[in-house]
């Protein structure tokens, strides 16, 4: 597919590689919310942490769930990983987050323009819509495309010390996720709550 958006000055990266780079930057038990499908498969594969939450459905809610965690624990930084197709389902969430301005929330959008897990069909936005422009228009002033891996790491570092929410968009390839998340929702939630210090381990 050749469109004007392909002319953006952004390298096409790999989701697992980018996710691993994010995890490597974490040192303060930051929470990470994985969206459905490949974003949480790669989050799992990057090395399970008790502060990771894996969604099993409810497409599009990675950012709202992360917002809830961020509002509950303002001293903990919260990252959310979302696919471009999932984000399209819940664009209104960007404005909600922009209005609330949680300083401890960073949103990462993995954009490959396709619904990869269902057979790589293009999203309705592929080739026409610019996620960072949408985020900026939604009121999220700190929104940027990552130009390459180093730029992504720089944006992550900037977001962790910021006083406003950040959105980082990454162009990624069409490689499937590595690994598969375990699919016991209660176990996922309990471990996450232990990781956040809300529950004592069993």
């Amino acid at each position, binding site marked *: 597919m050749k469109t004007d958006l392909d002319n953006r000055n952004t390298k096409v990266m790999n989701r697992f590689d980018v996710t691993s780079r994010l995890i490597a930057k974490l040192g303060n038990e930051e*929470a990470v*919310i994985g969206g459905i499908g490949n974003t949480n498969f790669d989050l799992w594969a990057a090395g399970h942490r008790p502060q990771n*939450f894996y*969604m*099993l*459905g*409810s*497409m*599009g*809610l990675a*950012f*709202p*769930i*992360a*917002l*809830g*965690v*961020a*509002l*509950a*624990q303002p001293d*903990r930084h919260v990252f959310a990983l979302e696919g471009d197709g999932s984000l399209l389902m*819940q*664009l*209104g*969430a960007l*404005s*909600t987050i922009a*209005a*609330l301005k949680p300083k401890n929330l960073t949103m990462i959008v993995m954009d490959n323009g396709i619904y990869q897990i269902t057979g790589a069909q293009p999203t309705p936005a592929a080739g026409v819509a610019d996620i960072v422009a949408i985020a900026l228009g939604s009121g999220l002033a700190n929104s940027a495309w990552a130009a390459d891996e180093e730029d992504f790491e720089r944006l992550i570092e900037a977001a962790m010390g910021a006083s406003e929410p950040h959105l980082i968009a990454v162009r990624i390839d069409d490689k499937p996720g590595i690994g598969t998340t375990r699919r016991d*929702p*209660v176990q*996922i*939630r309990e471990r*996450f*709550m232990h990781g*956040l*210090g*809300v529950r004592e381990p069993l």
Partner: protein
Amino acid sequence: MAIAEQKTSPQAAQGAGESSWDGIVLQTLKRNEISLIPYVPDRVLTPLIKNLHADPFFTTFATAREEEAVGIVSGAWMGGRRGAVLMQTSGFATLANVLASLAVPYQIPLIMFVSERGTLGEFNYGQSLVCRTMRPVLDSLALEHHTITRLDELEFIADRSIKQAVTTQAPVALILNPLLTGGKVFDK
């Protein structure tokens, strides 16, 4: 009468509407340490929303969609903060997916207050049909739900339902019927 007693009690003097349905809901939320209140507006909920905004105990804000609000309070619960979602019947109708894939399987005590449109004088055919989808959805997921019609039962039902939701880690829907709230009347 309980209502008359509340009107003359010292607590009643603290805030307007202490004995109104919205005042009772606000106080019940507060007593149960439910402080995060995302909502999608509804005419009937207006006094409650206004008073929640006015009370610094609560973090009250509008969301673009009810699903979003459910995601937010689910995340907040996991982070150790209690919340509740306010919506009207048509908003509930958008929630089947998030209830079945997040709140129920992850065992999250999602507390929902639903202002009931579509019954007792509804003037919008679309609203009345949407209303009829609500209880079958709740029943199909085996979700606890109560329809509140009486002011003197409101505090008991709301307080006990919230406590049950939290202790059993299960969602609950509290449906605010027009007999309680007055509902919305055809005025334009």
